[in-house]
């Protein structure tokens, strides 16, 4: 997921060709207070006119409490983005936004629920309440961790090593897995440190995050490499599934591959790898 400033035409129109799965058109932090109206209008027209080359179109709106959020929703929901990214999300915000979008979907003749929501978890309260936040709307398809604001909220130092966000990452990854939504990791803010980015992404993946936000197009390749299944993973998964099909035909519940027992969790992991590889086009499905 690549953040793009919402008031920059040059970056907006180039964004679909940079290799990201999703483009986040940012109306919040990337836009100064006196340009909110201009950015909103530009993003609206971009969504109406540009071909986003298959990228998911996400718009980060301003928070409801800022006073700009209502205008953002009213202007942007009518041109049907794929999703809204909701800053400093709370249950109350999500419920209110869900209701506002439902009204607009009815008015515009869109399929109810077609516009999805991605809460941005960037407060200590948000981390603790993430389960309820996700349960507060069926529109929620993912959660994005915002570590810069989170650490500021907690009054702790943000480091490259990221030990300070271990708990937040773990909690979000676990809750997202339980509720079957994607857990997107916080951006890595040093845009010139690619080794640091790789380590950070690997750490997030190990914990269970399913993707990572980028704040610079040059970060996309590293993130895609880390979060995509390797060809070794895909080959292993294919062999597990082939062995499973064979065992099933032979009436075996549990079977072995390369001398190791394969049971339901291993089969599930193999299926997940194949699904992910299909989703990002590494294998045909």
């Amino acid at each position, binding site marked *: 997921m690549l953040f793009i400033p919402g008031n*920059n*035409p*040059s970056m907006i129109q180039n964004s679909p060709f940079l290799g990201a799965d999703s483009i986040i058109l940012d109306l919040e932090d990337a836009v100064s207070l006196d340009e909110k109206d*201009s950015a909103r*209008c*530009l993003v609206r*027209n971009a969504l*109406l*006119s540009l071909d986003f080359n298959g990228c998911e179109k996400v718009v980060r709106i301003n928070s409801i409490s800022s006073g700009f959020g209502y205008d953002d929703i009213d202007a942007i929901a009518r041109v049907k983005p794929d999703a809204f990214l909701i800053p400093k999300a709370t249950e109350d915000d999500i419920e209110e936004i869900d209701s506002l979008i439902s009204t607009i979907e009815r008015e515009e003749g869109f399929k109810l629920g077609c516009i999805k929501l991605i809460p941005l978890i960037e407060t200590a309260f948000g981390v603790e309440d993430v389960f309820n936040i996700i349960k507060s709307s069926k529109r929620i398809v993912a959660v994005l961790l915002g570590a810069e604001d989170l650490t500021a909220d907690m009054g702790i130092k943000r480091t490259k090593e990221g030990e300070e966000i271990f708990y937040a990452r773990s909690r979000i990854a676990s809750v997202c897995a339980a509720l079957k939504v994607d857990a997107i990791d916080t951006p890595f803010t040093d845009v010139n440190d690619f080794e640091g980015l790789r380590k950070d992404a690997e750490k997030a993946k190990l914990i269970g995050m399913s993707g990572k936000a980028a704040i610079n197009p040059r970060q996309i390749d590293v993130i895609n490499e880390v979060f995509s299944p390797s060809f070794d993973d895909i080959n292993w998964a294919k062999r597990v599934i082939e062995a499973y099909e064979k065992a099933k035909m032979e009436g075996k519940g549990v079977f072995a591959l390369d001398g190791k027992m394969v049971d339901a969790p291993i089969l599930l992991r193999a299926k997940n790898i194949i699904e992910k590889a299909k989703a990002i086009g590494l294998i045909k499905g």
Partner: protein
Amino acid sequence: MKIVRPAKAGTMESNDIYIMVYPNENGNEIQLDSIVLKQFGNQIKKVIMDTLNELEVENALVVAKDRGALDYTIKARVETAIKRACE
């Protein structure tokens, strides 16, 4: 919409257009300066005029300094400038 004060929108950055709007007395008028004036001057003016018509603006002077903006950017910047000029 009635233009009641001068207003501006956009930037002079590449792929953008800087739009200034003023009240006018004799209909809509466009003064365009563009890095691609010869190739796309008429098309840019058409997008500006179509946007004014959509917004039902009848008496505006639009001064536009184009830096290679696509149609969606021209439309967005004109809309923003007009709304600011009518507030």
